[in-house]
């Protein structure tokens, strides 16, 4: 499909999301969205954070399972599971919607690899959406800690923190977690294992964040909606202007031709009129004889 049409489709989708969010009457609890690439361990993490250790609430599996944003309201906040980014366009659109409504973003990354170009772009997108407030709203989570071998995680983490700092200009709070270790710890009743999984520490941090932002939540959301509306309005103005320039470019050679034709035809009509006037004078003279 035409790039211009695809861009308008994206603007229309953003417009619909904005309309929906404008009219929603959701509970005033912070929304914490897990965001990241496919198979980063987002759903497993949210299951652990919400206490769904034995019976998962957010579907997990070997294949891509989350296709739509899923919400789960807890005591202090609402967890939002988003589809993994980077594979399917409609999944990505859902994930973007999750990002729009998120008050806190859990950016989940599964080492051993560093952040790839796509993830860096996602971080930049986050910065676009949340602006300066992102520093207080972003939590970087390194999942699959249990796969750490020979303490390689520490080095990877260091490199990733460096990437994020270069990309965003600040260092977000980071957590290393292992959902599997936490699950095993719960199953075996071993608190030490649970604590080592990093999940309780993260849960505590999220509780704290939620309490801190509760008072200003409504105002912050409203402010974000206004900002998004202004951004969308600007994007629409720019798109209209681009279309007008395109139309102008298309018309220009024809307008030039028409202008030249008018000039020539005016000269044709003018010399024809001059000759006609001469003929009329001659006729009048002839009639007077």
């Amino acid at each position, binding site marked *: 499909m035409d790039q*211009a*049409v695809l861009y*308008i489709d994206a*603007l*229309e989708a953003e*417009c619909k999301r*904005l*309309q929906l969010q*404008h009219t929603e009457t959701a509970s005033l609890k912070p929304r914490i969205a897990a965001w990241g690439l496919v198979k980063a361990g987002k759903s497993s993490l949210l299951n652990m954070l919400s206490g769904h250790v034995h019976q998962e609430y957010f579907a997990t599996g070997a294949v891509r399972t989350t296709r739509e944003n899923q919400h789960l309201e807890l005591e202090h906040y609402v967890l939002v599971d988003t589809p993994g980014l980077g594979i399917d366009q409609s999944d990505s659109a859902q994930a973007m919607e999750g990002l729009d409504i998120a008050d806190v973003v859990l950016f989940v990354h599964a080492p051993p690899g560093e952040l790839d170009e796509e993830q860096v772009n996602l971080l930049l997108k986050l910065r676009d959406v949340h602006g300066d407030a992102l520093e207080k709203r972003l939590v970087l989570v390194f999942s699959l800690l249990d796969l750490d071998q020979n303490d390689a995680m520490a080095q990877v983490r260091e490199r990733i923190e460096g990437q994020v700092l270069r990309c965003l200009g600040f260092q977000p709070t980071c957590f290393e977690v292992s959902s599997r270790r936490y699950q095993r710890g719960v199953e075996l009743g071993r608190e030490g294992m649970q604590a080592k999984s990093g999940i309780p520490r993260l849960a505590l941090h999220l509780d704290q964040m939620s309490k801190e932002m509760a008072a200003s939540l409504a105002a912050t959301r409203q402010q974000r*909606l206004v900002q998004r*509306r202004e951004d*969308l*309005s600007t994007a*629409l*103005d720019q*798109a*209209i202007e681009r*279309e*007008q320039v*395109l*139309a*102008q470019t*298309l*018309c*220009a050679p*024809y*307008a030039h*031709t*028409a*202008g*030249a*034709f*008018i000039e*020539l*035809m*005016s*000269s*044709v*009509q003018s*010399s*024809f*009129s001059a*000759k*006609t006037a*001469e*003929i009329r004078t*001659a*006729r009048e*003279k*002839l009639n007077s*004889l």
Partner: protein
Amino acid sequence: MPLPWLIGAAAVAAVTAIVKAVSDDSPSSSSSSSSSSGEAERRKQKLAAKREREQQGLKDRISNLEKDRREQLKSQLNGAAQTLGQPVKAMAPAKTATQLEQVVASQQSSDSAYGDAMKIILRADSAFSAVKTKRFLSQLNVLETLTAPLAAQQTEQQAQTQLRESAARIKRLQQLKNSVEQLV
């Protein structure tokens, strides 16, 4: 000769001379009158001939002017048609001078396929005024009436399609913009 005789003889001679003079003059006067009327006739004929010559001269001049005008029109129309990048068609010869004058002064807009395509294109150009578009279409109609209606070429059709699509996109964007503005 006695004086009275002399006086009498002189008187007779004088009378005789007068009578002679009168009798000599008589035929001369009648000839002058007939010569004057002939002159008038000649003058009249001369005037008539002169008028006829003038009339003929004017008729010739009018005919030449009309011929010149037609030739000039024909050649200038060729140039104008070439500007449009259209194949040049010959001017219809059957038009009378009056018909030509009416066509050239006509303000009617072209409704040919080319005219319709150009109307859409020029109206989409915000820098090209409506007055100029109207003028172009009426002048195009002059050309087409004197030659033949022009067909839209592939390039104009493509431009027309692209502009229609662009207009649809602009409309869609403006509708989106309106709905965003209503979000307060």
